[in-house]
């Protein structure tokens, strides 16, 4: 009874077993609701599950999977590099207008720019990478800037009293001191990139990818196929998120000391 009450208590700290229990129960409820409520149009969980198994069994899937993952890895890597450099440059007055502009690019919609990028890029792969970068960098940069804004004056003053010059201060506080948070920003924005992947892959189907599978199933109105691919994309995304989270704690052991959750 006490435990049940805990589940609804703000800030309550649960044992990892209870958390697992919570997740399992909620997933089961969701599946049951889905099974019971879907009409003729929406496929049942069992049908989707069967489809998923057959997709996972095909060799085609693995090629697509690898295509998607390597595309996203490449896009993320370049985007991170660009966003980090821009974030650090934001502290140098000369570059501030540029950084502000990139941040505001969140309000530009991709659709109108696809044509431009198509003209600029040499092939389908380059086009996809451009689109990913253009989509991710503004969001990534926005989060990074808010990390930098969170740095207290006193930490900068500490550097001064320790006789560090401005560049050393930048390196110590902004770069080294916030690497764990930059990593977390990357993890959070990985979701945005992952979400974009299907839309981006639709622009150039020749290389395959999970996005092209999705489009294919959509075209043949094979809804259980669509759902199956969606769920696979979802699970892979969540798994990557989990791995990145673990990696953060392994890379930056001090990071977990600071979170309240």
């Amino acid at each position, binding site marked *: 009874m006490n435990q049940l009450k805990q589940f609804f208590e703000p800030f309550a700290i649960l044992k990892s077993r209870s958390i697992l229990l919570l997740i399992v129960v909620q997933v089961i409820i969701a599946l049951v609701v889905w099974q019971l409520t879907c009409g003729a149009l929406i496929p049942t969980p069992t049908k989707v599950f069967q489809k998923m198994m057959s997709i996972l069994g095909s060799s085609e899937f693995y090629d697509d999977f690898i295509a998607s993952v390597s595309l996203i890895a490449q896009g993320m890597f370049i985007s991170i590099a660009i966003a980090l450099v821009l974030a650090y440059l934001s502290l140098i007055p000369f570059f501030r207008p540029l950084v502000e502009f990139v941040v505001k690019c969140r309000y530009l919609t991709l659709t109108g720019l696809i044509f431009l990028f198509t003209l600029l890029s040499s092939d389908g792969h380059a086009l996809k990478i451009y689109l990913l970068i253009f989509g991710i960098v503004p969001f990534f940069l926005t989060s990074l800037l808010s990390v930098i804004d969170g740095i207290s004056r006193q930490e900068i003053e500490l550097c001064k009293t*320790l*006789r560090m010059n401005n560049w050393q201060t930048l390196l*110590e506080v902004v770069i080294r001191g916030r690497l764990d948070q930059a990593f977390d920003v990357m993890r959070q924005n990985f979701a945005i990139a992952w979400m974009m992947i299907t839309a981006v892959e639709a622009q150039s189907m020749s290389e395959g990818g999970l996005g092209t599978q999705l489009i294919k199933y959509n075209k043949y109105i094979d809804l259980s196929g669509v759902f199956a691919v969606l769920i696979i994309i979802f699970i892979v995304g969540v798994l990557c998120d989990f791995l990145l989270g673990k990696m953060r704690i392994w890379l930056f052991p001090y990071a977990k000391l600071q979170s309240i959750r």
Partner: protein
Amino acid sequence: MSNFTRQEVLLQAENISLRFDKLILRDINFQIHNIVREGHNQGQVVSLIGRSGIGKTQLFKILSGLLQPTTGKILLGEDLHPVKSGEVGIVHQNYILFNHRTIEANLKIGLDHCGKEMTDKEKESVIKEYAGHFDLLDHLKKYPMQLSGGQRQRVSIIQQVLTGNKFILLDEPFSGLDALMIDRVKDLLLKISTLHEHNTLIIVSHDIETTLSISDTAWIMAAQEGKEGATITEEVDLMKLGFAWNPNVKKEAAFRDLIESVKSKL
């Protein structure tokens, strides 16, 4: 009681004033002298006492060279050169440390900028020595977030000492501590002040009793009637009064009277 004298000026505040939208500080003048005490390696412990909001923190920043006063200057050392940031250490009230560095690495960064060439081995042994002295040996591999407030405070202070800062400003070092901890911090500060003849601790606090009990000189900051901005209204020479370096001073009636009279002037 052994002999003591005040000798050369170590720090001089000259005509300091500070204006934001209104005048915060004005006409602040004082000198910190090197105290020479026979048979002791005696550093200086001085305090700035005033109500909160009076401008102590701003004066602090001016003293450390982080904030440029509207008029006047802070002069340091034998040649009385203007203060540059990095010559005066600050230990903030909330003991800021680099959270991404272990305690050992936090202390090492002090040595990295101390201006002396040292090998990593030498640094390590200096850090070990200080950590042993100040009860931190078990914590060197931990991160700041894993330490208690008192332990962090010690790390902060030692970090500044290792940087080679002879002047260390302490912002409210006794706030939020229980009576037992206050005594330990007092001992720590006295220990630091006697590490080197020129070590000078400048304490800003509203805990008048504790602060005065370890100071050799105190300045009272207050506003004067009819005038904008706070200034130093009085200097208390605890050394002359015989209250300095007396561990039992809190029990003396004359000291209690002094505290009462200081309180009435704030």
